[in-house]
Structures are given as structure tokens and as C-alpha cells.
């Protein structure tokens, strides 16, 4: 009944149980491990608050012909639901001032409004078109929407080392039946939990697209953002490149900067 042996016992227990615990971790199902990795990647991005950036999109057809699009983008972190975002189109000139407001949700369809400057009209639009192309690009709406954990089920596949960098390779399955994909294979680096590559498989189980994300930059000593992405469509030979610039965090945005009024004033 002396406190000392108790502490010793606790210490001993700790020494013996630790390896057991990690062994247990090693024995978790691939599904649990996949979810753990996705959750960790998500947790590392908590607290980013808000961001603002300029986005340049280069669309390339199979002959290498290019067209360029430019837009500005803002995002606001929402703690207990999906994030809010606004995209303001700058170029080509005929769509200048057109703006898209999205309230993403962890479950169910997102809420979306589109502002058409020529008519001064704010239009609530359907967001059920997950697999449709964004602005004629190789990115589908679902590729660019807020990647909430709840939107997929996960499975750990393997560890892989490429060029001396260790990756987790996990597979994720869209929960939404309207998704254009059966599964996605995702490469996440083990050091910082950043996504580097995604292989997309369509409803016929054939390899549709590959996304590569690189030029990662660290902001506020905590948040990694890729400043470059390239999506290649293997079935059409088309590709789309996205480049970000003027990335800023902590702009002090509030819900007022992401409502139907701000949509009309955005440009």
C-alpha cells in the first residue's frame, strides 16, 4: 500500500505496454490505418483560418494547344462543417466578374451560388454535378471541392520509397454515388502528410487521370500548400495545369466575406 511500488508498477506497465500498443497499431485493419493517415493529414491543416490566392489555369489539348484562365480564390475555415470558398473569374474577359460561392458540407450536397454580372443576378445552382468539368478543364468539381474526411472511405495499401522519400500509399472510395470515380490511389509523404500524387479510376475501373501536386510551400510555419498541380487525362491526352501565386493567410475574413452580398461585390 505504499505509493512507491504503485508508481513502479505503473512505470513497468508503461514499459511493457508501449511496444504492445504499437504492435496493436501495426495490426489495425488497412481501413483503419487509411483513415488514420487521412485524419492526420486533415488535422495538420486545422487552424489555417482563411486564405486568399491568385490561380492561373492552363488548359492543354492533345496537340499541345493552350488556353489560359485566371481567377482569384478565397477560403474560410469552418470548424464543424466543410469550408466556405469563393472563386472570382478574371480571364477570359467575357466571364470577368463572374463569381462562385460554395458552402461545402461534410455530408450531402454543397450549397452553391453563381453571380452573373451582366444580369446582376445571383443564381442558386445545383451542386450535384460532381463529375462535371470545372471551366472546361480536366479537373472535375469534386477534385477541387473541399476534401473533407467524411467524403471518402479509406484503405491503407503500402509504404513506398521514391527518390529517398517515404510515402504512405492509400486508396480512397468516394461516398457520394454521383462521384465519377470508383476509387483514387493517393501518395502521401510520411514526414509532413502532404498529398503528392493521385490516380483516379473511373466507373469502369479504368485509369482515367493522374494528378501531381508539387512546389509545396510552408506558410505560418505550419501549413503546406502546393503552388503547382497538373492533372493529366490518360484517355483524352488533355491536361490542365494550376499555379497559385499571392498566397496569403490570416486576411481576417468573416462569414460576411462569404455571403451572397460579397459575391456581387467580389471582383
Amino acid at each position, binding site marked *: 500500500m505504499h505509493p512507491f511500488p504503485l508508481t513502479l508498477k505503473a512505470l513497468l506497465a508503461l514499459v511493457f505496454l508501449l511496444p504492445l500498443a504499437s504492435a496493436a497499431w501495426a495490426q489495425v485493419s488497412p481501413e483503419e490505418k487509411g483513415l488514420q493517415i487521412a485524419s492526420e493529414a486533415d488535422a495538420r491543416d486545422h487552424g489555417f483560418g482563411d486564405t486568399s490566392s491568385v490561380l492561373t489555369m492552363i488548359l492543354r489539348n492533345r496537340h499541345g494547344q493552350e488556353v489560359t484562365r485566371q481567377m482569384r480564390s478565397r477560403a474560410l475555415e469552418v470548424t464543424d462543417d466543410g469550408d466556405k470558398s469563393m472563386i472570382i473569374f478574371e480571364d*477570359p474577359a*467575357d466571364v470577368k466578374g463572374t463569381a462562385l460561392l460554395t458552402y461545402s458540407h461534410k455530408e450531402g450536397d454543397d450549397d452553391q451560388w453563381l453571380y452573373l454580372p451582366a444580369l446582376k443576378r445571383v443564381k*442558386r445552382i445545383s451542386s450535384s454535378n460532381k463529375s462535371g468539368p470545372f471551366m472546361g478543364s480536366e479537373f472535375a468539381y469534386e477534385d477541387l471541392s473541399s476534401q473533407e474526411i467524411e467524403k471518402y472511405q479509406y484503405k491503407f495499401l503500402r509504404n513506398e520509397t521514391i527518390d529517398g522519400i517515404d510515402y504512405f500509399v492509400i486508396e480512397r472510395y468516394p461516398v457520394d454515388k454521383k462521384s465519377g470515380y470508383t476509387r483514387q490511389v493517393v501518395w502521401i509523404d510520411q514526414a509532413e502528410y502532404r498529398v503528392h500524387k493521385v490516380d483516379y479510376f473511373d466507373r469502369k475501373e479504368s485509369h482515367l487521370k493522374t494528378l501531381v501536386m508539387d512546389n509545396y510551400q510552408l506558410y505560418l510555419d505550419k501549413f503546406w500548400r502546393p503552388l503547382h498541380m497538373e492533372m493529366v487525362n490518360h484517355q483524352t491526352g488533355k491536361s490542365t495545369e494550376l499555379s497559385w501565386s499571392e498566397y496569403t493567410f490570416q486576411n481576417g475574413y468573416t462569414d460576411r466575406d462569404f*455571403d451572397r452580398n460579397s459575391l456581387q461585390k467580389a471582383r
Partner: protein
Amino acid sequence: MSMPCRLRPVLLLYVMVWPATAAELTGDIGLEARGFLHPPMQSVQHEAGLSLYAAPEFYTDWDDGRQRLVFAPFGRLDQHDDERSHIDLREFYWRKSFASAELAVGLRKVFWGVTESRHLVDIINQTDFVENLDTEDKLGQPMVSLRLVRDWGNLEFFLMPYFRERTFAGQEGRPRVRFVVDTDNPVYESGAETRHVDWALRWSHYIGDFDIGLAHFSGTARDPRLVPQFSSSGPPVLIPHYDQLDQTSIDLQATKGAWLWKLELATGEQLNKRFTAAVGGIEYTLYGIFDSAVDLGLIGEYQFDDRGSNVTPFQDDIALGGRLAFNDTQSSELLLVTGIDVDTRGRFTTIEGSRRFGQNWKGSIEVRFISNIAVGDLLADLRDDDYLELTFARYF
């Protein structure tokens, strides 16, 4: 002496570059060609015509983006129609944003509503009818407006001290009804005429999948009654009569997956008589038809209005249509809508298509034709004015 001379270009450059972050000139200019499918009803009219338009827009922000000045003139030069050759200030206003309010003074354009085939509750701006029969081109409305942004929605007040008359095609213009509308001699119910002060109030909000707007308008009706007047000196003319109108309206949209359910309802008093009007229906989108990137939107709406046929052609009508969005890099689109009068079976069909060329050019096509129209219908006079229009525009 040489120093200031060398400095001047630098200063000039500085002045030119400095506001670029907060000010911008955008807009479009275009050439439009219209060809009519039938010979004109009157010999002064023409088989085809060209016109040029310019719609520049300048804006500048200051005070950390809290204040903005917008200047958006519009001008069109028409080959034949003197009434269609016109200039307007679409927008010319100053706006100041506060933490949860917004004040604007000047000429503005405001859109209310959700439906596609008729914009029943959209009542703030006068229609620039010489531009297009679809009533989507609007004249700038002088106003003072205040918007309050609250958790329970937006509340907007409008005070409109000056009335804008609707524009109508002139002697040589097409499409137009048989008699020319005499826009120089309008008749007003109010003795204050164009200086009658109109006001309006609107609350709008969204709750989950529902977007809702409630509004009241009190003032001069934007839609005139056209009353024939016979004269000894020439052919009869149509005199626009602008009544006083009190209208309460609701607009509602439910967004349920690929289904959009839409309703606009208005009731009010005009010429001491109560009226009720409605337009409602659905838009359903089929995404990626035939394994392509093309979306097909199906539109079905019903229109009802218990006012006389001299006020509106939408008394008991159905509108059916389809919208193709090609989702390509040229943003190609095609819309086909047919309005069918349930009583007379008269049909009014519209086809609109557009496509971008290169980075800054856009081509569009518009076809409007009337079929199966009964004599005496408000639109019957337009039956010879079916047309095809091509527009090529440069955006900047």
C-alpha cells in the same frame, strides 16, 4: 530645368500605374447583324440591318475597398432605327460598405427573381425594349438604396425619385407591332409624372436548400398599357399609359440535387383592381449526357396573369425548353425555349447560342419566331418579324 522634364514621364507613369490596383476599365463592343425572315409589314421597314454597340464599364475602389464608384454607359448605333440608336447610363453610382450595411446612391441595375421564362417580380429597372424582346436589357434606375445584412437575411430599401420610360422601336424599326409607340407623349396616372417618388422594400434569405425573397413595390408601373390613338394627320399611334402600381411579391427556389423548383408570385393593385400573377416550374439537369461533358438542362414553367392582354401576353402560357452547356474551353452554350399560349395555341420560340473565339472574342446567335398565332393576340403583329441575329463582340 531639365530635371522636371525628365521627371514628368515618370510621374505620368506613376499616376497611370498607381490606381491600376483599385481601378479597372472593362466591357465589350460588338457588331450585330439582323436578318428578318419575312418582308416587312410596312414599306419604311427593312429586310435586314446592322448595328454597333459599346458597353464599357469603369470602376474604382478606395477607402480599403469600402467605397466604390461605378460608371457604365451604354450606346448603340443602329443602321435604320432612330429609336434603337440610343445611349444610356446603365450604372453610375457610389457605394459605401459598412460592417453590416451598404449604402448606394446613383443609377443602378438590380435583379430579383428565380424563373427563366418571365421575370415577374423583377420590378426595379425599366426594360430597354429596343435592345431585345426578352426584357433582360435594363435602363439604369436612379435611386438611393440601403441594404442591411443580418443573420436573418438581407433587408433592402429603395427610394426612386425619377421614372424611366420604356424604349420602343421607331418607324423603321423591327421587330415592332403595327403601330408605332409614341414615346414622346406618354400618359401618367400620377400628376407627378416622371417625378413620382417610387419606393420598394425587399427581404431575402436562404434556409438550407431554399432561397426566398419577399418584396413590396409602390410607384409607377414599369409595364405600360399601350392604348391606340387615332389622329387626323396620320396613322394611329400607341400611347404608353403608366399606371400607379402597388405590388407584393414572393420568389422561391428549392434546390434539390439536379432539380430546381422555382416560383414567383405577385399580387397587387393597378387601376383600382386587384390582380394576381404567377410563374413557376422546374429546371432539371442531366449531367454528362451520352458519356460526354455536355449537360442538358430541361426547363418547364407555367405562367398565369389575370390582367388584360393589353398589359401582358403571359395570361395562361406554358414555356418548355432545353439548355445545352458543352463545358468546353470555348464555353459553348445553346438554349431553346418555346412559349405556348394555352388558349390560342400560339407559339413564340427562342434559340440562343454563344461561343468564345480565342481569348477575347465571343460570337452569338439568336433566333426568334412566332408560329400558329391567332389574329388579335398581343403578339400577332410580330408574326412577320421572325428574325435571325448574329453578334460578334470583343471583350476587354
